[in-house]
């Protein structure tokens, strides 16, 4: 227990043992930076109650720019509920959500999407009857400007905008690796391609933060590795932060700069992968208090 304490409070970074993300320096409280404006996404003391139940209890959460953060926890931890509050699907009972320095708590999901928060879904929710290209173009809605009249009369401006949108869509499809599938109906794509399409679609929103809900579910190890590389590329090339909900520990440990752990609505741990790996509370939360024999398995 004391080791992880030392790790967590160490100023100056902890070299990660794997060839993973660059080291992360937590800034101790009392520093000059305002968490609201220096983070892409900042959730401040979020509590979510349904009737008398507290699903999420006073959780604060920060995602800096160009970072990869994971949110993990056993089943029933409140991860999805919390995710839904971040994206605006649920209203928090208490607390505030800041996106790019602005308070988005009262703002509806579609506006948050337009402001730069994009997500994928745990059970893929593509528009099956539209082509891959069209799926991506739907997400460009906030960034396109043509109105009803210019659409009816196919003004040069509208036509140009459509052309550019199609080009951007194709480029995004190439970027995620399914460039050849642009004319294919989304429901006819393979599972892996559908996952990629969902990400391409989310990226069409030009987000500052990409929220991925169990993106590697159903992937084999090779695909998971491809996914890891992809996440780094996205973070570095596209200036985005990525927030993942995941259960696959190998992906989490390799890819995350920081990990937040929830259990039954409470934030029980927060730190680098090494911190979490050794954290007794986390291990117990996942496995119950039935001894640490299984705990050793948790180290990826």
């Amino acid at each position, binding site marked *: 227990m004391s080791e992880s304490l030392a790790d967590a409070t160490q100023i100056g970074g902890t070299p990660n043992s794997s060839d993973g993300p660059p080291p992360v320096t937590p800034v101790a409280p009392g520093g000059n930076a305002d968490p609201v404006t220096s983070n892409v996404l900042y959730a401040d003391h979020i509590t979510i109650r349904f009737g008398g139940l507290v699903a999420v209890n006073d959780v604060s959460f920060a995602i800096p720019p160009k970072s990869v953060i994971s949110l993990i926890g056993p089943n029933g931890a409140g991860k999805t509920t919390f995710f839904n509050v971040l994206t605006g699907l649920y209203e928090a009972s208490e607390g505030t959500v800041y996106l790019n320095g602005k308070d988005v708590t009262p703002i509806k999901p579609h506006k948050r999407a337009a402001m730069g928060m*994009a997500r994928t879904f745990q059970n893929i929710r593509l528009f099956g*009857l539209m082509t891959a290209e069209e799926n991506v173009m739907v997400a460009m809605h906030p960034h396109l400007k043509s109105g009803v009249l210019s659409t009816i009369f196919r003004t040069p401006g509208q036509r140009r905008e459509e052309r550019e949108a199609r080009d951007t869509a194709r480029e995004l499809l190439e970027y995620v690796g399914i460039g050849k599938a642009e004319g294919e109906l989304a429901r006819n794509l393979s599972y892996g391609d559908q996952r990629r399409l969902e990400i391409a679609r989310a990226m069409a929103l030009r987000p500052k933060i990409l929220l991925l809900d169990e993106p590697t579910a159903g992937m084999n190890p090779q695909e998971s590795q491809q996914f890891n590389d992809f996440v780094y590329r996205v973070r570095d090339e596209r200036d985005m932060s990525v927030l993942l909900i995941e259960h696959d520990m190998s992906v989490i440990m390799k890819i995350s700069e920081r990990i937040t752990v929830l259990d*039954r609505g409470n934030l*029980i741990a*927060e730190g680098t992968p090494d911190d979490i790996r050794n954290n007794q509370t986390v291990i117990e939360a996942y496995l119950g208090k039935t001894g640490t024999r299984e705990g050793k398995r948790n180290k990826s």
Partner: protein
Amino acid sequence: MATSTAPRTSAPSPSRRSLSHYRWPIGYVVVIVGLFLLYHFILPNLVTQVSGPVTAWLPVATLNECLMWAIMALGLNVVVGYAGLLDLGYVAFWALGGYTAGWLMAAPFNWTWDFHLFGAVAKTYPGTHITFWLVILIAGVLCAILGLIIGAPTLRLRGDYLALVTLGFGEVITQFFRNSNDIAGRNLAGGDGGISIIDPIGTGPFGATGLVPPGLSNGAQDNVYKILVLGLLVGACLFISLRIREGRLGRAWLAIREDELAASMMGVPLVRTKLLAYAVGAFFGGIGGVANAAGITGAVSPSGFDFGKSVLVLLMVVLGGMGNVWGVTVGAFLLAWLNSNGLKQIGVQLDSWFGTTLTATLPRYNYIILGLLLVLMMLYRREGLIPEKRTKALMNTPSRTEMESMGAESLEAAAETAAVEKADAKTDAGIAASAAAVSPVLDESTPKREDRS
């Protein structure tokens, strides 16, 4: 994962369309012009044995009615077929359109001013007489505004509630017009009597040449010209309907129909997008209302607007093929014909074959037949006669947003809530304490900066 040779299934960009892509619009123009020529030139010169049955089975008046209904059906198609909103009160826009014609193209009750603007009647007539062509635009805009007013609070409701609320609006607006002869002591729209003697459709420059009468009254001769006028209006509606579906609005509508929640998460503003569909549909309704008042009935009264008419238009859209403008037009023609003349003619035919007395009775079964048709369509061919590509799939599986009210997002969240239910407060306190020990960054007890509010 061989996707490299997948055929393109999305529409090619406009510059690359071949002639065959235009086969429906061309066909439409041919039919309209052909019908005009038929009734104007050919039939009067044919012998009665031939022209008789043609005019019996499809009199010009019925043909005009069919065209007018097509306008309405195309309008509702935008609402139901494109955006997937079940509107059972569409008749409200029809009514408003008709009354706009009554207000701007007649000399109603006690109004005492004279205002002429290219009107189709002589300048000596009292009252307001604005040209038909301007009035349809005004009515369209007024109805679009009404649509925005009705839609703004209600379009966020789910499907079945929306249906009932729109039904209610239809009834209320009709009731408003029925009471309109005494609203706060003023006569606004003639009450039960309505407004009669509405101006005919003015032909403007064409009328001036002498080839065509200056105003198309309800006479048999003038009615033939209305084929062209109404055909033009339907053509405009077809054009607008087809064009408006391209681009981001069309994609947004389709996305909403498939999965409203995902669409909203991808930046599509749900209420605003639905409102647009509703307003466009209302616009068409206004045009149809004016066309009906000025071109077909010559008057407007509350008895012409009832729930039955709303359902009739809905049936046209459903029967024809929701979302497919050509299907909807065909559906409108078919049902309008059936309702106005067809049943009677079938009765006449059956009478002459079997000696029955169906001529009088068959038309009275129209509502039963129409209701039966709607039920059978829903059971066996939801996509309609000439379906739109995606409607068949959409109508056979419920949308994601319906199946699970929010999908995994809410099922999982519900599971999480259930897990919390079983939580133990003492254990939770222990967990929270150890969390604080692990991550002092988040620990409340360390000194904090000042609040910034």
